[in-house]
């Protein structure tokens, strides 16, 4: 029933010249998404991937188990001195992420261009 979560990694450079790692998600973010969310994140080199962007543009459904995976990612990133930002959330999930406090630990941007410009 849940659509499988796909993820891929892109490496970009911000206009300010900083290397940025983008994790692009597609499908649902739910309890079955552990490998796609945490597994993909954990495969990044912690010494060089210091700026991480989460792309939710192609995600339609995020439930509380999916939010928990994002929080777990944020905890691991904080422990590795990585900064995490996100973009592409719908207005509803922007509200939900704000309500649960994720915005205290991950800046949200409407799109990739706005996010990169801020890094």
């Amino acid at each position: 029933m849940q659509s499988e979560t796909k993820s891929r990694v892109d490496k970009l450079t911000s206009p300010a010249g900083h290397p940025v790692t983008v994790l692009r998600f597609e499908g649902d973010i739910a309890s079955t998404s552990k490998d796609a969310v945490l597994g993909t994140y954990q495969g990044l080199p912690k010494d060089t991937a210091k700026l991480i962007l989460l792309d939710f543009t192609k995600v339609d459904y995020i439930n509380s188990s999916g939010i928990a995976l994002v929080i777990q990612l944020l905890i691991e990133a904080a422990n590795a001195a990585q900064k995490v930002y996100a973009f592409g959330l719908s207005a509803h999930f922007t509200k939900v992420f704000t309500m649960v406090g994720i915005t205290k630990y991950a800046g949200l941007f409407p799109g990739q261009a706005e996010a990169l410009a801020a890094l």
Partner: protein
Amino acid sequence: MSEFKSATVEVRLPSRLGFEKVAMSSAASVAKLMGFREDRVEDLKTAVAEACINAIEHGNRLNEKLSVGVVLSAGGDKLEVKVIDDGKGMMKQPAKPDIDRKMHGEEGPRGMGMFLIQALVDEAEWVAGCDGKSSYVRLVIRLDKEAE
């Protein structure tokens, strides 16, 4: 907008994660027929999904022999949703999740579902079944008169 004529829709879900999306779609369809704004439909979808996930995981403990009942009662200016499972119901409300405590490992990353339900609908109550079974959560979402 004229008042919506009362209607009841019932859905039964298997206790399998993912099927909460069937209840979400049904609730969204009824809410749209009633004239709810798109943002309120999204609030309802998330609240219904979380209520069903709780029923599947905690109420019916993922036992696929048990089903989760979802009753959508539309009438007047409100939509009531009951999500019924075969669990004993909640003995006490969990503490409000705290992102700082989660980030510092002082509480687990999960436990957002009930908080989201309460934050996204106008009324939410958890009722334990008198026979130790058939517990339910009752959600109410109202049409926003000012936005009509």
